[in-house]
């Protein structure tokens, strides 16, 4: 059959979530995927026998609990396991462990600075307060501030009420917070560089901003507002790798009768008389559909798979100017043993969780300077995690795999495009840096996958390899995401929608974009809503 009620382009986790909700509501849906595997950036791949890499995204805290529960993803095989403790490594050899238990965390901070140990309580309270407001918007469609529709007014009032509930002083602080840099924000709390750097990494991950760039404080919040089972700020691993999330959603989708077709890249979205009518695949197949949903980023959707002439004036340009700069790389390493790090207690609760090689605030900023000059950072910020220390399914017993996220890595180099040689040099920079903190690390390496923004774009389809499908700065958040006037998942072409991280609430493996888009589609079709609107954590 080549006609569907809805065709969804891209089997990333948001596309699958969108399709699952449409199928649950009784629609006949098809997800088309260009790769021969599903998952997009939430994927598990065995590139070396015995090791399963989460090639792109690697940890999870944004996944909406109410969607997980509603789609019964546990029954479909998904288990999210919280992991403990990240160690922060400073240039001078000092370390700071973020222990899971409050007493241990406090004692560790006190070792560095009594002042900062106390100040951490205030930071955590403030971040939790900020998080709780934002979290309430995650599963809601942003209001259109220029609309007089009752629903938009209602949603605007909802937002206003949530913000006003903070009290006058905190409201001022919050508004200011959105425009601050991570460094300025942290300066208001802490005295010591290592405590600041341990928090500042969250402000730059995935973003072409530095720790001193305005707007990076929101990125920090975006990274700490997730939770695992209601414990805000906690991070989890998907048992079996991040692909387990996509596989579970796909299984839910199939249980509702939905279909997935792999090796089915989309050449063009078909538009007739201002309405989307289906897609043409790269192999020439035509799939007609009443509704077309793009899970691709906004730039790719409007400049790669649509005819410029099919778009209303200005949209193509908006998409061209959509801020989606690639800034990160990923190095996945199979190891023959658990690496030991200098200056770290041999404590299974901390030295097996995560590592952040952040150096200092200045080192992080200098890493950003490299990106601006079109080179990869020679002393990069690396956020690592060793999932195999917690997940028995991703490496042989006693062996490990280490996920390394690197900030910064440009989508194109100043001296020309990426080549395999340059990619390998970039990888070498990363393992050289880790070796500094873990002598003998290189001897443990069994296999390595180095991914620059170029590889990420080629394989996953994220423009410039931007992990958020567009930067999370205030000009591209909430009712501005992806463009003002088009933040409610409906695109300028009739019957066409977007459901990826280019839409509210943005990047992260949350499934919220896909679910919110499904709610809007069902509303347009006058079908009963099947999508949860609220998360119940913070009631």
């Amino acid at each position, binding site marked *: 059959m080549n006609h569907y009620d809805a065709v969804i382009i891209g089997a990333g986790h948001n596309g699958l979530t969108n399709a699952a909700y449409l199928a649950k509501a009784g629609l006949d849906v098809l997800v088309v995927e260009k790769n021969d595997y599903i998952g997009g950036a939430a994927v598990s791949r065995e590139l070396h026998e015995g090791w399963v890499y989460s090639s792109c995204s690697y940890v999870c805290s944004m996944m909406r609990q109410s969607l997980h*529960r509603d789609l019964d993803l546990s029954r479909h095989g998904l288990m999210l396991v919280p992991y403990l403790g990240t160690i922060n490594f400073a240039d001078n050899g000092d370390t700071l462990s973020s222990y899971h238990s409050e007493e241990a965390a406090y004692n560790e901070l006190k070792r560095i600075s009594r002042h900062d140990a106390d100040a951490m309580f205030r930071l955590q309270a403030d971040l939790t307060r900020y998080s709780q407001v934002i979290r309430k918007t995650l599963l809601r469609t942003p209001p259109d501030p220029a609309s007089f529709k009752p629903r938009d007014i209602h949603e605007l009032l909802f937002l206003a009420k949530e913000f006003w509930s903070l009290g006058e002083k905190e409201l001022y602080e919050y508004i200011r917070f959105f425009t601050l840099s991570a460094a300025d924000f942290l300066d208001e709390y802490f005295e010591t560089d290592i405590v600041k750097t341990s928090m500042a990494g969250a402000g730059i991950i995935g973003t072409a901003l530095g720790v001193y760039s305005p707007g990076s404080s929101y990125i920090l919040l975006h990274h700490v507002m997730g939770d695992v089972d209601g414990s805000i700020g906690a991070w989890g691993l998907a048992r079996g790798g991040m692909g387990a999330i996509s596989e579970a959603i796909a299984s839910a989708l199939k249980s509702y009768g939905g279909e997935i077709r792999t090796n089915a890249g989309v050449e063009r979205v078909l538009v007739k008389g201002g309405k989307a009518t289906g897609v043409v695949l790269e192999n020439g197949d035509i799939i007609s559909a009443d509704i077309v949903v793009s899970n691709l980023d906004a730039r790719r959707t409007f400049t790669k798979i649509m005819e410029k002439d099919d778009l209303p004036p200005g949209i193509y340009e908006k998409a061209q100017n959509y801020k989606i700069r690639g800034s990160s790389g990923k190095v996945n390493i199979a190891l023959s043993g658990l690496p030991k790090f200098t200056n770290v207690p041999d404590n299974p609760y901390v030295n097996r969780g995560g590592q952040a090689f952040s150096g200092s605030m200045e080192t992080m900023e200098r890493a950003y300077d490299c990106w601006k000059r079109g080179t990869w950072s020679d002393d990069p910020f690396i956020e690592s995690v060793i999932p195999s220390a917690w997940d*028995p399914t991703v490496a042989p017993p006693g062996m490990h795999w280490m996920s390394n996220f690197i900030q910064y890595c440009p989508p194109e180099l100043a001296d020309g495009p990426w080549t395999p040689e340059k990619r390998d040099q970039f990888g070498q920079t990363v393992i050289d840096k880790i070796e500094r903190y873990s002598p003998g690390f290189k001897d443990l390496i069994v296999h390595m996958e180095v991914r620059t923004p170029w590889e990420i774009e080629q394989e996953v389809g994220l423009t410039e390899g931007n992990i958020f499908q567009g930067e999370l700065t205030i000009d591209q958040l909430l009712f501005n995401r992806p463009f003002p006037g088009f933040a409610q998942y409906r695109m300028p072409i009739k019957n066409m929608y977007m459901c990826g991280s280019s839409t509210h609430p943005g990047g992260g493996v949350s499934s919220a974009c896909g679910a919110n888009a499904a709610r809007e589609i069902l509303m347009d079709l006058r079908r009963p809503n099947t999508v949860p609107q609220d998360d119940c954590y913070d009631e």
Partner: protein
Amino acid sequence: MIVTMNSFDLATEKPKPSHFQPRLDELNIKEAWSAWNGYKFAEYYYEVEYEYFCVRNLCGTYDICPMQKYFISGADAERMLNRMVTRDVTKMKNGRVSYVLWCTDEGRLIDDGTIFRLGDEEFMLTCGSPSTAWLKKSCVGFDNLTIRDRSDDYAGLALQGPTSCAVLKKMGLTGIENAKPFTIHHFDFGGKPLMVSRTGFTGDLGYELWIDAEHAVEMWDALYAAGQDYGIHPFGEQATNMLRLEAGFIMPGYEFNEALKTVHFEFDQTPFELNLGWMVDFKKPHFNGRSALVEEARRGPKYTLTKLDIEGNKPADGSFIYNSKRCTTDIGYVTSAMWSPVVKSNIALAMIETPYLNGELWAEINYEKELRQFHKVARCKIQDAPFWSPERARLTPPSDF
């Protein structure tokens, strides 16, 4: 007057060390101890949720030394047990384990436990509370048997979780992967007999290891050496309580009040009330509580223990259950409740008056936010299957993870 206290006076006040105590002490870094049957017993070692996840994701050990272990042997052993418990012991083959209940003459539950059939005339009965007096009563009329209480000299350690079989293989227990659920296997552990049963209290893949107390630490060390690459970690009472609730298992002090310790009339429970009617075998000859249970089976239990999936995520600890959202008539009460991290559901066990099971069920949930008290009314859905029941718990041979 100066009051002095010497250590002798306090000796009985102190919990006894477990047979694994030297190792437990090293691992219980939070010093979170309570006591069970006089033994020092860990509430948790590091963090409850962490230990819980070790069992669901890797594997964990749980000290069951404080469990009561009675060795009952002799020509009358089978007949005695068969008269005491509600299931048919004569159907048990050698080398099998059976979960059993025993009741008063009025059919009220005294305790639950497990019977290990070690031979034609040899059994081990394990249970949570000391039962010497009741066992003696149960022997009336049976002369050809002896009961040996080995609670203090036989060590038990549960190993539970998806990697548990892989750990035992690594430990050198050849063929353990062929052990089916509820079977017993004997191994030579450096010349000492080691008994392993595929049993547990977590609803997951798991085993229990049994050895003479003097070899307990040596066995622990061998197990932990084997488990190093499989995430082995101890778990305490609080994690156990989460795990057993997900599996839908009952716990004394939560779902039932032991009949012999119950003061108020019918404040104890019957097997039917606990939804364990399937464990009462009326086809076998007379057993304790039979006639009362026949009568109850006929008229139906007053209450029924029910698994609930409750909307929202606030655990319904101590909640009343009502038959309407208005909460005017209470029809039951929650016995155990939690947010289940693996099922991602707000789960509970509740005792509900049987006639109301077909109607609406609402729980009034109290919760706290920064010292302020709140309450909400949440709809409850009855769930028939256990909340957590992975295939690996039943598979033979199980996978390595």
